[in-house]
């Protein structure tokens, strides 16, 4: 990408996108080979993505079909994770549930990151807007995530879209506060001051001088949003306030098993294991990215995820 600098010179800023992507891919593979935990986490996340895309195709039975004769069966060669109270195959429902978890997780992460970063960049340059917006953010952050999401969903009704909306609203507030803080401290840096001194317009300063320098914070925070959103969706569904009950979601399947704890341990155990492993993989990847991108960030940032 060639860019005309703010002083009028032409600069070759970065190699073309394809080279950069290949470089990123190579660097990731290299890091994963050196760090076994990272390698395993990335493999598990990729497996999860694969199941999210192909889960319904891989299911060996119709995961909606009830089979009362074969209800509450323990795990066996035919039903790897057993069957539930309606005789539905728990393995099939669990891998189909992967899609919903990933859909909610990635949607919430994408929506809250894009909107949060955009708002934070804009308000950090307008004092009055900043004062008003931050009061809203403080207000939203005073509620625990799940409680606010529960209340929102009770108002707008349980559906996949509404779960995404409710979790995005709560996640965006956290993003705004984090990015705004980073932008405000960058604004005092010499190179931003220099850019302002030569008369660079504000939008250009934000896009070319500020944004590239907060990308690492945004990426690391995004992994924690992903982990929290996947957990939050499962918690909401478990409470019966997430996606509708008939949708195979990990939280819904665990709730089913909860009612049959004496005889149906397998119903809740397996989806819970999938959920834990997924969240663990995302958290570990986030930790690793943080350590690679910016050693100074170690041990910080975390306080904003709860």
């Amino acid at each position: 990408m060639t860019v005309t600098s703010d002083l009028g010179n032409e600069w070759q800023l970065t190699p073309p996108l394809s080279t950069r992507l290949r470089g990123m891919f190579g660097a990731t593979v290299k890091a994963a080979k050196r760090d076994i935990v990272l390698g395993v986490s990335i493999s598990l996340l990729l497996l999860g993505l694969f199941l999210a895309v192909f889960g319904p195709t891989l299911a060996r039975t119709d995961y909606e079909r009830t089979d009362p004769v074969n209800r509450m069966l323990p795990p066996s060669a035919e039903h790897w994770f057993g069957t539930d109270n309606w005789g539905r195959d728990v393995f099939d429902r669990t891998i189909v549930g992967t899609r919903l978890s990933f859909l909610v997780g990635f949607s919430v992460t994408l929506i809250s990151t894009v909107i949060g970063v955009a708002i934070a960049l804009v308000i950090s340059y307008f004092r009055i807007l900043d004062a008003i917006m931050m009061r809203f953010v403080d207000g939203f952050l005073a509620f625990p995530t799940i409680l606010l999401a529960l209340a929102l969903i009770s108002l707008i009704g349980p559906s996949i879209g509404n779960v995404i909306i409710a979790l995005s609203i709560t996640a965006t507030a956290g993003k705004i506060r984090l990015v705004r803080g980073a932008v405000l401290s960058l604004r005092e840096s010499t190179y931003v001051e220099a850019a302002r001194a030569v008369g660079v317009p504000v939008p250009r300063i934000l896009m070319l001088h500020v944004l590239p320098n907060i990308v690492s914070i945004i990426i690391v925070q995004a992994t924690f949003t992903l982990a929290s959103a996947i957990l939050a969706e499962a918690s909401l569904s478990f409470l019966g306030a997430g996606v509708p009950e008939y949708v195979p979601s990990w939280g819904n399947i665990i709730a089913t098993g909860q009612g049959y704890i004496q005889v149906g341990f397998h119903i809740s155990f397996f989806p819970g294991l999938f959920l834990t492993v997924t969240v663990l993989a995302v958290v570990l990847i986030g930790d690793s990215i943080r350590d690679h991108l910016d050693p100074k960030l170690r041990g910080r940032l975390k306080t904003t995820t709860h």
Partner: protein
Amino acid sequence: MWRYIAQRILVSIPVVIMVGIITFTLVYVGPGDPAAIIAGDEATPEILEAIREDLGFNRPFPVQMGDWFWKLLQGDLGTSYFSKREITELITPRLQPTLSLGFQVVVLSTLIGISTGMLAAWKAGSRLDRNLMILAVLGFATPGFWLAFLTIWLFAVNLGWFPVIGYKPIQDGLIPHLHSMFLPVMVNSILASAFISRITRSAMLEVLREDYIRTARAKGASEFSVFIRHAFRPSAIPVATVIGASIAGLATGFVLTETIFAIPGLGRMLVDAIVRRDYPIIQALLMVVAIVLIGVNLIVDILYAYIDPRIRY
């Protein structure tokens, strides 16, 4: 110090007002006509109109919100749609289980978190340190409701050490009360302490690199004294922040654990209210929880100034 405390209190007031505006607006713009919910299915339009007139639902939005705030200041949280009783009256019996759970979890998770975090920092780089930190990451990733399910299955269903469900109030005796609360307390404490442990470790490691720690060691202070007297206090600030933040996490955890363990506390009350769409209760509980958390943040802020007197200025 008093000036600092007064200043912190003043800063929290706009947050409380904002929380009130958000809570009231959410329910106001939400679907569902409160008059219709109160009147039931067979209400005629005249009855609905009468209810609206009577309870003031037809007044302009700012007036209704002002009225709601004014009642709130007098400690009136409104009336439940479902049971038609005062919400303050409904909340009172629910306080004990939640407060008891909260107190036990905060004490236990702080003790476990700080001690394991210090242990890991002391043995930094060792196998013990690595194992403790693996546990801490696991604690972050494990969903509380699933861990609760596993512990009920193991300790209540299979081993029979604890009742599957069945909360006993303190009035039944302290020991039966603690016994009935053991599993929920453990589940929440383990998860909350994972976070505290991680932050304690990294804060301690940071402080241990400081010059004055080297000085303390050079003058011959024992390793124990270096840890407790020289290193712990400066690292207490991030730890206090995390304990404050984990209390917000507990509010979430309690909604789930109270539901699973059938503890008749505030979290359970919220879930019931959501199932019944009892909006005044949802509104009241959101408000109560947010105010409690703002209060916790206020206490943490004041603690900062106590730990590090420089913050006051």
